[in-house]
C-alpha cells in the first residue's frame, strides 16, 4: 500500500521528480568537483545567487498554472527593487515599514494585473506585457539612476548564515546558544525562501482558491460549470504572483544594497522565470505543477552557472552552454509525444 502511493505520486509528478533528481545530481557533483569541497560559505554564496530568481520563478508559477503567462514579473521585481532601495533604511521601525510598503506595492501591482485580466478580459500574456512597461516606467520614476541605500546590518544579516544573523542582532548569545547550534550554518536566504513557501504557498495551494487555480488551468469551462470562484482565483493568482515578485525585488535590494531600473535585467528575469517554471515540471498549458517545482527549476538554472566557476570554462562559451543546456532540458518534454497513442492528443 505504502509503496503504491509513492509510485502513484511519482507518476503524477514525473516532471517535478525528474527536476528534483537532476538538481540533486548536479548539485552533489558540483560540490564534489569544488576545489574546497562542501562548506557553509559555498552554500551561502550559492543560495544568495539563487534567492531572487527563485522568488521570481515562484511568481511566474501562478499565472502559468492558470494557463496564462505573466510577462511583468521581472518588471515588478525591478519596481519593488527600486522601491526597497529607497525605503528600507533608518530606524528599525522605518525598516519594517519600508519592507511592508515594498511587499505591499508589489502585491498591489499583481492585484492590478489580476483585475485587468479578469474584468478587462484581456489575455494575460498581452496584458502583462503592457503592465510590465508601466512597472518599468514607475521604477524609473522611483530611481532614475542606479544606486540606493539599504540598511547595512539587514543586508549582512539576511545574506549570511543563521549564526551571523543572530550575531548581528545580538540574539541567542550572538549566535552561540546551544539550541541554535544545529541550525547555525544554514544560509539565511535559504530559510527565507523556505519560510515564504511554507507560510504562503502551501496554505494557498490547499485553499479552495488555490485548487480553483489548478481547475481553471485544466478546464476553465468545467471549473465555471462547477461553481468555482473563477474571478477570485484568477485575481488571487496574479496578486500572489506580485507578492512573490516583490519578495524577489526586496531580496535583490537587500543583497546588492541598491536598486537599478534596468530594462534588460527585468527582461532577463522574466525569461529565466519562464525557463525555471518549465524546468520545474509545470506545464505551460496550465493545471499541472507547483511553485516548489519552480524553486527547483530556478536552482537548476543557477547551479549550471556555478559550474562555470569551478570548471575553468572559457567565459565566452558560457552563454552558449547555458542556452544549449536549457534547450536540451526542455526538449526532454518531447518524450511525451512518443507515448501518445492517439495522434489527436498532440494537438492540445
Amino acid at each position: 500500500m505504502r509503496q503504491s502511493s509513492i509510485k502513484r505520486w511519482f507518476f503524477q509528478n514525473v516532471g517535478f521528480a525528474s527536476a528534483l533528481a537532476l538538481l540533486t545530481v548536479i548539485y552533489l557533483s558540483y560540490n564534489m568537483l569544488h576545489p574546497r569541497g562542501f562548506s557553509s560559505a559555498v552554500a551561502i554564496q550559492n543560495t544568495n545567487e539563487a534567492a531572487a530568481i527563485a522568488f521570481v520563478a515562484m511568481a511566474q508559477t501562478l499565472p502559468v498554472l492558470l494557463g496564462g503567462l505573466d510577462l511583468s514579473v521581472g518588471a515588478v521585481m525591478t519596481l519593488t527593487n527600486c522601491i526597497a532601495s529607497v525605503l528600507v533604511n533608518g530606524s528599525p521601525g522605518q525598516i519594517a515599514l519600508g519592507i511592508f510598503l515594498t511587499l505591499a506595492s508589489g502585491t498591489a501591482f499583481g492585484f492590478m494585473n489580476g483585475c485587468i485580466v479578469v474584468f478587462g478580459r484581456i489575455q494575460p500574456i498581452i496584458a502583462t506585457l503592457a503592465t510590465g512597461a508601466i512597472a518599468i516606467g514607475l521604477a524609473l520614476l522611483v530611481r532614475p539612476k542606479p544606486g540606493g541605500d539599504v540598511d547595512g546590518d539587514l543586508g549582512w544579516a539576511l545574506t549570511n548564515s543563521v549564526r551571523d544573523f543572530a550575531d548581528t542582532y545580538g540574539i541567542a548569545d550572538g549566535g552561540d546558544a546551544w539550541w541554535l547550534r544545529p541550525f547555525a550554518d544554514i544560509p539565511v536566504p535559504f530559510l527565507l525562501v523556505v519560510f515564504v513557501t511554507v507560510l504562503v504557498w502551501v496554505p494557498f495551494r490547499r485553499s479552495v482558491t488555490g485548487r480553483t487555480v489548478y481547475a481553471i488551468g485544466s478546464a476553465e469551462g468545467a471549473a465555471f460549470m462547477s461553481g468555482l470562484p473563477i474571478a477570485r482565483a484568477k485575481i488571487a493568482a496574479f496578486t500572489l504572483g506580485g507578492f512573490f515578485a516583490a519578495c524577489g525585488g526586496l531580496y535583490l535590494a537587500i543583497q546588492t544594497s541598491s536598486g537599478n531600473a534596468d530594462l534588460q535585467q527585468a527582461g532577463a528575469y522574466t525569461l529565466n522565470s519562464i525557463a525555471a517554471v518549465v524546468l520545474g515540471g509545470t506545464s505551460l498549458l496550465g493545471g499541472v505543477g507547483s511553485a516548489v517545482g519552480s524553486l527547483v527549476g530556478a536552482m537548476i538554472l543557477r547551479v549550471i552557472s556555478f559550474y562555470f566557476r569551478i570548471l575553468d570554462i572559457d567565459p565566452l562559451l558560457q552563454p552558449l552552454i547555458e542556452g544549449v543546456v536549457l534547450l536540451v532540458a526542455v526538449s526532454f518534454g518531447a518524450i511525451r509525444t512518443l507515448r501518445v497513442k492517439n495522434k489527436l492528443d498532440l494537438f492540445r
Partner: protein
Amino acid sequence: MRLVLSPENRPIVIASLFIVVILLVGTAYTLSTTGTAPLLSPRYLLQQLQTGSFLGICAAGMMMVILLGHIDLSIPWTLTAAAMTATAIGGEMALPTALVVGLSVGLLNGFGVAFLRIPSMIFTLGVDTVLRGLMVAQTGGFAPQDSATPLMLFLAKDRILGIPVAIFVWAAVSIVIATVLTRTGFGRSIYATGSREAAAYLSGIRTRLVIVGAFVTSALCASLAGVLLAGYSAKAYQGMGNAFLLPAIAAVVLGGTHILGGRGRYVGTLVGVVLIVLLNSVLSIMQMPEAGRQIIYGAVIIGMLLVYGRNLRVTS
C-alpha cells in the same frame, strides 16, 4: 446611416483613428510650443516610417506565428545573428547568408514546436539563448569591426524618388505576406491551424509543415530586418534586436490579431506598427523622459485592448 463594422475590422478602424489622434495631439503640442507642425510634413513622416520599417518587417513575420497561436521569442537574436553573419561575410554573399541564417533558425524553431511539440514560448526562448551564446562566442562579446556592405547601406539608407528604400522593402514584404495570407492555400491553412489544430489536421492539412513554414517566415523576416538595421547603423552590434521583440508582439495584437491565433488581418498589423512608431516619435518630440514613455506605452496598449481586444467570458 449607421456604419456596421465586422469584428475583424473594428480594431483596425479604431487603431487608425487613434493614429489620427496621436498626430493631432503631437501637432497641437508643437504648434503651441514652437509654432510649427513638423509631424504633418511628409519628409518627417517618411523618416519615421523608415525607422519603423525594421519593426514593421519583424511584426509581419511575428504575425504569421501569432496567427497559429504560437509566439516567436527568438526574434532578437535571429536578427542580430543574421546581421552579424552578413557583415562578417561581406561582399555579394552578405544578404543571402543572412537569409540562410534566418532559414536555419526558422527550421529549427519549426522542428521543435511542430515535431517535438514543445511549447513555442520556451523552445524559441531556448533558441534565442543559444544564438546569443553563438554570437558572443564568435565575436568575443564586442561589436564586430566589420561594416555593412554597399547593398545593405543602399537598402537601409538610400532614397528612390525621395522615398527611403527601406519603406519599399517593407512594402514588398507586406505585399508578400498579405498575399500569402489571403490568396494561398498556405495562408488559409495558417488560419485553420490557428483556430483549431486538431480540426485542421482532420481536414487533411499537414499542420506540422504549416507550423514550420510560419516559423521560417518569421525568422526570414527577422533576418531581413537585421540586414536592414545593420545597413542603417552601418554595422552590427550586440543586442541590436532586443528593442524589437515586445513592440512587434504589441503591434500585431494592437492590429486586432488574436494572441491565441486564428483571427486577424495583415492591414491591422501595419496599422499597429504605424501606431507604435508614431506614438514613440510624438513622445520623443515632447521630450518625455523614459519613465513617462514606458508608462504611456503600457497604458495605451491596455486602453486600446480594453476598447476592442476583450475576450468572451468562458462559460462552458
